[in-house]
């Protein structure tokens, strides 16, 4: 049973560019959340998707957008990259019906470096 997978593993971009990160949830999970983790910090919630719609959003600008596909996989898009966007981007999945009772399962992350 594959866990949460993310691609690519590493990415280097320059300021002003756009980037797309991808996530496939754990089998049986229908909800995907994205987090940004700056070096030495805890993960910060970006947004959550289920039923192909953004359901919750953290304190991130509109440059951050996402999508969820019918197979529950998800993309995170970041436009007009800034140096401060350099971070580890984590995708987490969970089964929505389990509610609070289950922990979110995190993927290995995508390390984004903006030069």
């Amino acid at each position, binding site marked *: 049973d594959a866990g949460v997978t993310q691609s690519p593993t590493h990415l280097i971009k320059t300021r002003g560019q756009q980037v797309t990160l991808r996530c496939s949830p754990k089998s049986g999970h229908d*909800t995907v*959340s994205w*987090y940004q983790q700056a070096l030495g*910090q*805890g*993960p*910060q*919630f970006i*947004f*959550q998707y289920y039923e192909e719609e953004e*359901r*919750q959003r*953290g304190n991130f600008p509109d440059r951050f957008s996402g999508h969820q596909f019918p197979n529950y996989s998800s993309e995170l898009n970041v436009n007009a990259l800034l140096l401060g966007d350099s971070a580890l981007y*984590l995708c*987490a999945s*969970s089964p*929505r019906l389990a*509610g*609070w*009772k*289950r*922990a*979110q*399962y*995190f*993927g*290995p*992350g995508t390390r984004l470096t903006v030069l």
Partner: protein
Amino acid sequence: ELKVEQNPLFLSMQEGKNYTIYCNYSTTSDRLYWYRQDPGKSLESLFVLLSNGAVKQEGRLMASLDTKARLSTLHITAAVHDLSATYFCGNYGGSQGNLIFGKGTKLSVKP
């Protein structure tokens, strides 16, 4: 708005010693989650605490939750080098998706 605070942020221990990591949160909640992160790796779920007085143990780690004090503890017994990692506690801010984490406790266990 929920805030989660951990202390200490850095912890250097000798093998064989015991220590406790503390996690305080600012709003009423009856759940708390502990994760482990190894350097350059993702977060691994350790414990899910879902009620006041909940206690869970795995190996040398034991987590507990006091919802009245808004406090969770992660107790390390007879530390070994393999426990060296960063430990995060987290709680849901307002919805199922909005998991808010503390800054993490970086644990280093030395021989």
